């Protein structure tokens, strides 16, 4: 699972770099192959250095991570603000090359922290540069980045979960990838299609600025968009932001240290799978019969429900004949419905249309009689044990 995660990290970096290069850099095939090799080597070095970083004391490593993270964040924010403020091809090419080179360093130090946040952040920054280009490339960059980030996050989660519970990764790698992909890929596809439909054409490059050297009065000189004062403000904001981020990062690292709980993940003995009995309510559902038998049974059950509503429920231990004897009236239709039910439910021979008609007619007549002349409420031997004056 770790190897798969590293591969996705590599693909994420390569995709981000290639998109940015295709958008703004000199993206010859040879150059891209060269960058792919360089990224691979940097990532391998980073993975190797991970073991070396393990020996550094946690506190010292956290401090290094916060410092380097602040530096990286400052560079990324400054670069993106410059890119968004003055998106000239030359500046964007310069920034793409700068961030691509920086990515090699970031990959080399990827395992300084348990989670390679710096790599993901850097990849997103490169994708942001590619996104400024717009068009199909921007849509691909957004969708693919979302997909790869989601897959990496999902795999990383499952790897940590399985490692924490000391299970073998092998049987669960494919399932983890599949589960993550099922959530991430549709969203990524939708994002890619949505972005492409929103901006199908690449953004046009601004026209080259023509410098007018002719004389004009001092007060009429046009102001350039990115003057030195704005640049100074950006740099100052970046520096202040970097310091703030540094202290916030330190505070987060320190505050998390005290919250850790001792969670034990014992290796349990896994028993065999056992079936759970269906719910009691399900087992009490009425039986289903097909054809004429079913219709006769349903008719008789309707009779019983009607008698219950009229205050004369069948007792659990009572047979159909006993119930008919207890209810008594109307004698003939009740006997007809009861006999038809007994033949349909317990009889060996197939019931005929005559039986069905007899049962349905009898049940309807009994229900009609019960509606017109409700029977006296039947005494429940358990619930009404002390209730006087009720007929048994």
């Amino acid at each position, binding site marked *: 699972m770790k190897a798969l995660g590293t591969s996705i990290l590599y693909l994420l970096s390569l995709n981000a770099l290639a998109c940015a290069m295709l958008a703004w850099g000199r993206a010859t095939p040879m150059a891209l192959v060269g960058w792919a090799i360089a990224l691979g080597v940097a990532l391998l070095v980073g993975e190797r250095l991970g073991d070396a970083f393990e020996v550094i004391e946690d506190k010292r490593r956290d401090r290094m991570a916060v410092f380097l993270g602040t530096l990286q964040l400052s560079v990324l924010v400054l670069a993106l603000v410059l890119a*968004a403020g003055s998106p000239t091809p030359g500046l964007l090419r310069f920034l793409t090359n700068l961030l691509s080179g920086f990515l090699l360093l970031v990959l080399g130090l990827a395992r300084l922290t348990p989670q390679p946040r710096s790599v993901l952040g850097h990849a997103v920054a490169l994708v942001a540069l590619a996104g400024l280009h*717009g068009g199909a490339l921007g849509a691909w960059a957004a969708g693919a980045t*979302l997909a790869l980030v989601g897959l990496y996050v999902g795999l990383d*989660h499952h790897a940590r979960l399985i490692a*924490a519970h000391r299970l073998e990764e092998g049987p669960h790698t494919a399932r983890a990838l599949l589960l993550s992909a099922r*959530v*991430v890929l549709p969203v990524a596809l939708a994002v890619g299609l949505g972005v492409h439909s929103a901006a199908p054409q690449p953004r046009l490059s601004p026209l080259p600025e023509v410098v007018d050297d002719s004389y004009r009065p001092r007060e009429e000189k046009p102001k350039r968009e990115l003057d030195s004062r704005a640049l100074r403000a950006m740099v100052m904001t970046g520096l202040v932001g970097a310091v703030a981020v540094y202290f916030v990062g330190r505070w987060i690292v320190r505050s998390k240290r005290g919250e850790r709980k001792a969670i034990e993940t014992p290796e349990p*003995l896994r028993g065999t*799978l056992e079936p759970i009995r269906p719910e009691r309510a399900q087992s009490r559902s009425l039986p289903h019969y097909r054809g004429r038998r079913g219709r006769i049974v349903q008719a008789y059950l309707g009779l019983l429900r009607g008698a219950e509503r009229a205050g004369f429920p069948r007792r659990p231990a009572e047979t159909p004949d006993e119930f008919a004897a207890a209810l008594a009236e109307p004698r003939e239709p009740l006997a007809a419905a009861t006999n038809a039910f007994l033949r349909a439910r317990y009889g060996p021979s197939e019931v005929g249309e005559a039986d069905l008609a007899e049962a349905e007619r009898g049940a309807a007549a009994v229900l009609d009689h019960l509606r017109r002349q409700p029977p006296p409420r039947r005494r429940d031997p358990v619930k009404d044990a002390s209730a006087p004056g009720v007929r048994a």
Partner: protein
Amino acid sequence: MDETSPWRGFLSAVAALSGLLGLASGTPALVGLAAGWAVLLALSWLAARHGLASLEVRRRLPSSAFEGDLVTVDVAIENHSRRPARFVVAGDHFGAGLADRQSVLEPGPLPGLHRRILSYRAFVARQWGVYFVGPLVVGRYDPLGLFFAQREVARLEPFEVYPAAARIEVAALVGGRSSVAARDVTAAAAGESLLFRGVREFHAGDDVRRIHWPATARRGSPMVREHERDLQPRLSLFLDLERRGRAGLGRKSTLEYLVRVGSSLLWTAHRRGDAFSLVAEGERPVVIPAGQGQAHLAAVLHELVVAKQTGSLPLTSLIERHRAFVPPGAMAALLIATTEIDLDALAAVLSSLRASSAHPVVVAIDAPAFTQVDRPPVPVEEARALRAALVGRLLDLDVPGAVLGPDDTPEERLSHPDFLSLARPAEAGS
């Protein structure tokens, strides 16, 4: 494993920045990236909660254990839905252990309407007392691990930890003798002992294997062998929970010593197959009649670990009140919390027990030598004098006994062969 995702906050911040940048620069790709992440967050939140209601988890574990034991806890994860469940986490809190929580994972797939039992072992790391196990929770992550949803499904269960008992070898010399097998105390005089008692006529219901054939041949009618009933060894423990015996703190307290010595005496009796009873009076009277077996031992040890020294009845009065619990031949263990005891009353009780053929044993805790918690400290000389007086009286009465002070470790003293051999203390200055 920490339930908070290391990625959720970071990637949300990155996505928010991308979205802002995209809105500011009019870049749909960045806005789309942020929106996609927001959708993923929402889907993950829903996925973590989806199907959680159909997951059940149950726990099964013994209700008690001794200090240092390994307890097996069975956690059954049940999937009551029709769809398989994957990566289900069950969290439990075993109060008698050191960890804040135990977490077990069922990676699945756990088919619908099936359960799997995961058994984990927890170490009883805490001292004797009553702890709680639970609450038991069942939870699951979304496929990206961004959210963890859990549901509490079981309330707290009490779990008792009994003190690690030391086997007291010397007690075998004092009480009844070892039995061949445990027997019912209400059996008739003739029993299943190996000792031959005689021959009698055959009665209906007698085991034909007991027919004594030579005697049958001589008498001309069936005769059977009869064996004597084995004496039932019995221990009656009288525990002093009077308030004035309260002294010391934590592991160096009289209550700690009382409980450890008491549990060791009972455990030793249980191991030998003896019947044992407990009589005490703290905040409420505790009278457990003689019995045998694991369940009886658990009942008696339960009373020990929940005992409080809040009583007002002296131990001698308690014994007089419950003399019926000491049948002839039984061992009566008197566990006294303090040496500040009415020696004359104690002597009278011991003599009375002796008179009824019982074997009294006295184990006293030297409470005045412990740190006092609710009264001024007792001068050292006075404490020594009290101890010497008690030891002297016991020696005079020839009653086996022991006095434990704060410098003694109960476990070591109990397992020593001379545990109940008193020595007259040396006179001061000699």
